[in-house]
């Protein structure tokens, strides 16, 4: 790269958010540079690779067989005593992806549209000067600079670029999960077309263990737990795998780790000359911690506002404010309802899980998680199912406190 090159927009981070944004921007014939500190796009993943069909529809994205490696038809939830509730449909409900192929596919689209991507280029400082940002970049043991009026920070949970430009993206430990995962092969004993989730305080305190099947006896087997747990995520996952007949003889072909920002999105995703998207803006589902679809959509919404800013030459935080509003109106507000669902889950003990697994349906479980219980659902849940367990009633009452239609005592 030449010294002091200038781009209309510089995106930091070549993950789903950054790449989705770069495709949209490059399609408008606006000059865009994508920087990533890593040596390979899509790798190492910090992700279980599941993506629901709803996201494909919403994003008007065709599933491709090259990177949609398993078709998912439902989910199974397991309580500590081994009981499970399950939902399996005939029709496809989503896919488990091969992210390194998926993201390279996105990178190809971006470059074909006119974007430039540079790997092993790390931003080490960002300073504003005359309504521009000067990024200092370290690459191949040398430093260089690049100028741009607008930076898109899509640089993940370890985002430092936003902080350099004065937007605090720090994660609250209470609202962050520690994630750890193996991609394993040579494993068996689970339905390859379901996502499997295991709950329990001994299994995964304040979280869950998952099996997301990929093809031919291969799956992402991972765990997310509260950051404040005494033991590490690795400890809990290793212990659990040793107890599973279908898994303990499998081989690990990949080791993944990462922090999961499950506490809801940043209040403010913009400041002067800066937009934030993806994990850097905490764009993760607050209940299950998934973030591919949200990051893709967030990246595209950021791109829409970046394009507008470029056309109008307006880059102040005030001008860019519409981005945060657009994000919350389009997706953020809907997903924030789910934060309550996670806080509820975290309060359940093993007996509660066992009881719920034996009494509620998968549909009810999903509605609780989505914050989508109707008045009728609530009445039924309270009068028929929770009434015998006062502890659970208390937890659920708190969960539904602000909702209209809550049954009176």
């Amino acid at each position, binding site marked *: 790269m030449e010294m002091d090159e200038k781009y209309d927009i510089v995106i930091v981070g070549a993950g789903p958010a950054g790449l989705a944004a770069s495709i949209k921007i490059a399609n408008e014939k606006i000059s865009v540079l994508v920087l990533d*500190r890593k040596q390979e796009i899509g790798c190492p993943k910090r992700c279980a690779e599941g993506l629901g069909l709803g996201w494909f529809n919403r994003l008007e994205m065709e599933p491709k067989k090259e990177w949609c490696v398993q078709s998912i038809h439902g989910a199974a939830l397991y309580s500590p005593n081994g009981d499970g509730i399950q939902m399996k449909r005939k029709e496809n409900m989503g896919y488990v992806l091969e992210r390194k192929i998926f993201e390279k596919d996105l990178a190809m689209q971006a470059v074909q549209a006119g974007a430039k991507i540079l790997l092993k280029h790390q931003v080490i400082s960002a300073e504003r000067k005359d309504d521009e940002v000067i990024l200092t970049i370290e690459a191949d043991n040398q430093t260089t600079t690049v100028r741009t009026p607008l930076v898109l920070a899509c640089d993940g949970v*370890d985002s430092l670029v936003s902080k350099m430009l004065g937007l605090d993206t720090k*994660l609250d*430990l209470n609202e*962050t999960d520690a994630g750890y995962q193996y991609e394993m092969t040579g494993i068996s004993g689970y339905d390859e077309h379901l996502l499997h989730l295991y709950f329990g305080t001994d299994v995964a305190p304040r979280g869950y263990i998952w099996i997301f099947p990929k093809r031919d006896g291969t799956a992402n087997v991972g765990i997310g737990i509260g950051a404040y747990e005494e033991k590490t*995520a*690795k400890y809990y996952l290793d212990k659990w795998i040793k107890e599973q007949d279908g898994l303990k003889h499998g081989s690990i072909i990949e080791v993944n780790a*990462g922090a999961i*920002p499950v506490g809801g999105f940043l209040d403010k995703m913009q400041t002067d000359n800066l937009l934030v998207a993806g994990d850097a803006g905490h764009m993760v589902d607050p209940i299950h911690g998934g973030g591919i679809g949200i990051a893709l959509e967030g990246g595209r919404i950021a791109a829409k506002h970046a394009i507008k800013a470029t056309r109008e030459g307006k880059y102040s935080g005030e001008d860019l404010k519409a981005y945060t509003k657009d994000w919350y109106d389009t997706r953020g507000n809907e997903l924030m309802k789910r934060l309550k669902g996670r806080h509820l889950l975290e309060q359940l003990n093993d007996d509660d899980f066992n009881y719920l697994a034996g009494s509620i349906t998968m549909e009810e479980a999903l509605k609780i998680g989505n914050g989508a219980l109707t008045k009728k659902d609530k009445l039924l849940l309270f009068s028929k199912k929770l009434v015998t367990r006062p502890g659970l009633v208390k937890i659920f009452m708190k969960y539904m406190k602000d909702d209209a239609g809550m049954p009176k005592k």
Partner: protein
Amino acid sequence: MTAKNNPNKCLYCGGCVGVCPVQAITLKDTRLVIDPKKCINCGACVSICPVGANKVEK
């Protein structure tokens, strides 16, 4: 007093970078750098680490 990272355990996931309250940690491609001048030894990086790669002196 400063947090220490064990490169033999670390998976370079960057979780600790995100939770560090004083931005003392930088993640390079395959290397974690903790700035002892900034580190306040608070232990956030120890709490979040999925593999127990970070330690603070007590």
